[in-house]
């Protein structure tokens, strides 16, 4: 009996100690609610700076649903674990963050915990926002707290067990969250360091462009090797980039500023929203991002000039034998894509398209199905969608033809099921994503025919 009592006591002690340690890891205190601060109490210069930062962070994209009010949340984010809905970050006192003091906002950005002390899902990319400085968090807070308050309660997430238990997020953080702020690299220039601070932090480029492990954390060893976003594939933006013509800092700067580049084509899908937001960002910051990312892409491989790539696509014309694919391309695509009219209003020569040389056919299929929608009230690139015009078989034939003629890479497999999936996901994407609200920067460029 005595032995049982000792064993029982040890077990009980272990359970209590375990629970205490676990509780300490999991539990976060609530931060006292405040009365919503008056918008006038914030310095207008700080609010303006916050607006630029919010654009850099692409906050409105996830926190706004199509047809909904800015920052009022409700947009579904598909994940392998179920669907997570973004929340209301307007200063509404009951359904938004109106009662959050700045300290609570900063804690959410740093460690993914809301004012009440609940762990937030890492779809909110605090694994990047942990790098954001106190000053930048203060400006973001000032900007968000001076937006129009919107009453919009959060939609319940649709997650499978056990992922619907917020306690698992505490474990996830223990494994994957590095609470570090950005340390400048003294060997690099100030522009590079500014770009690194933005890319690794607020701009959270890796959230889409870095592959994730089975538990949904970014794989640090494979940074920028390509990931996904909203059923689009996010290209590798390092040495593995599929771009036929290599990227450099000038091209990146132009692309991020304008939403297109003559050697690369037009931003679309979730990236269209990113570049649309970059229109509100100081050009020095966009340039810094370009400088840093050009370093990540690495030195350009030689022999892939624009002229060489386009000539390759031409010379492959005879080799790509499928007559049905060739006929669909000639009748449907070539009118714009071989017009010689420069982007953004002429279609890009498809030999230059990353979508055709990428490992994943989804972007090409998505764009064939839905086209590029015009931006309301602006001149912007357009492409009609062919989802209603072409059946699945016709799209698969066309995509195979484009792949073999323009990329010279092995054919994609399972195309018809990709097309079927894309029909479903693109309908959902178009009905819920906020979509670009303004054309990218530099109106003088846009207005050139």
């Amino acid at each position, binding site marked *: 009996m005595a032995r049982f009592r000792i064993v029982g006591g040890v077990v009980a002690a272990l359970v209590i100690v375990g629970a205490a340690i676990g509780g300490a890891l999991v539990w976060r205190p609530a931060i006292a609610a405040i009365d919503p601060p008056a918008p006038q109490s914030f310095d207008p210069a700080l609010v303006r700076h916050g607006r630029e930062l919010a654009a850099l962070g692409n906050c409105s994209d996830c926190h706004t649903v199509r047809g909904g009010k800015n920052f009022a949340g409700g947009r579904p984010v598909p994940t392998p674990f179920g669907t997570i809905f973004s929340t209301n970050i307007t200063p509404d006192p009951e359904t938004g963050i109106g009662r959050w003091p700045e300290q609570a906002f900063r804690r959410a950005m740093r460690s993914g915990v809301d004012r009440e002390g609940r762990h937030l899902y890492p779809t909110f990319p605090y694994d990047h926002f942990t790098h954001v400085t106190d000053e930048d968090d203060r400006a973001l807070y000032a900007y968000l707290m001076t937006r129009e308050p919107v009453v919009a309660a959060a939609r319940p997430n649709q997650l499978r067990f056990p992922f619907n238990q917020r306690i698992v997020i505490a474990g996830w953080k223990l494994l994957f969250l590095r609470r570090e702020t950005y340390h400048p690299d003294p060997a690099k220039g100030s522009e590079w360091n500014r770009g690194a601070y933005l890319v690794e932090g607020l701009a959270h480029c890796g959230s889409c462009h870095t592959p994730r492990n089975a538990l949904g954390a970014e794989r640090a060893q494979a940074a920028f090797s390509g990931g996904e976003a909203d059923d689009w594939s996010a290209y590798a933006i390092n040495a593995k980039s599929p771009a036929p013509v290599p990227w450099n800092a000038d091209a990146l700067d132009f692309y991020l500023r304008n939403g297109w580049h003559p050697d690369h084509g037009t931003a679309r899908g979730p990236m269209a929203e990113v570049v649309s937001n970059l229109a509100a960002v100081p050009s020095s910051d966009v340039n810094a991002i370009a400088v840093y990312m050009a370093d990540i892409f690495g030195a350009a491989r030689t022999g892939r000039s624009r002229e060489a790539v386009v000539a390759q696509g031409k010379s492959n014309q005879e080799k790509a034998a499928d007559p049905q694919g060739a*006929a669909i391309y000639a009748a449907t695509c070539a009118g714009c894509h071989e017009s010689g009219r420069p982007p953004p209003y002429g279609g890009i020569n498809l030999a230059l398209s990353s979508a055709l040389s990428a490992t994943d056919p989804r972007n090409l299929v998505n764009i064939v199905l839905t086209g590029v929608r015009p931006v309301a009230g602006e001149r912007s690139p*357009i492409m009609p*969608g062919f989802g209603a*015009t*072409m059946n699945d078989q016709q799209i698969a034939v066309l995509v195979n033809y484009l792949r073999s003629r323009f990329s010279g890479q092995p054919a994609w497999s399972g195309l018809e099921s990709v097309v079927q999936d894309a029909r479903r996901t693109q309908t959902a994407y178009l009905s819920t994503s906020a979509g670009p609200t303004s054309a990218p920067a530099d109106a003088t460029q846009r207005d050139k025919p």
Partner: protein
Amino acid sequence: MTTTLKVNGQDHRIEADADTPLLYVLRDELQLNAAKFGCGLGQCGACTVIVDGKAVLSCVTPLLLVEGGQVTTLEGLGTVAAPAPIQRAFMDEQAAQCGYCIAGMMMRAQALLQRNSKPTDAEIRAELAIHLCRCGTHMRILRAVRRAAHLMDTAELSPANQESVR
């Protein structure tokens, strides 16, 4: 190239290049002028017709993609004497001003109602969002689509009712 098509229930053999837009064939060969040439870029919706149950932009639809397909244009829905529910609803609501975009809107609304007999306002708006109209009868158009849904739902189209249509 010869393309076979069934247009408004009638078989046609069209002699034209494979890349000829369906719109050109409808208007120039078959004298079906309801579908309009607006932008020619698949951006305004004025050229919308129904092919195999789906609303398509006929200005960017080359013939080779619709080989053997069943095409319905506004002329195939009803006549002045016996308008289809969607046409009657648009007349009752006086939803056209200049009317250039309306044939396309009616065709897309028809395709919507064929697959979803009770669309919500949000669904109607989302469906018609790609159609451009500069006149500003948008609210009437929305009412007309709702009215058409009701007409189809209640089968309120006895011959007596049809005759009462202006």
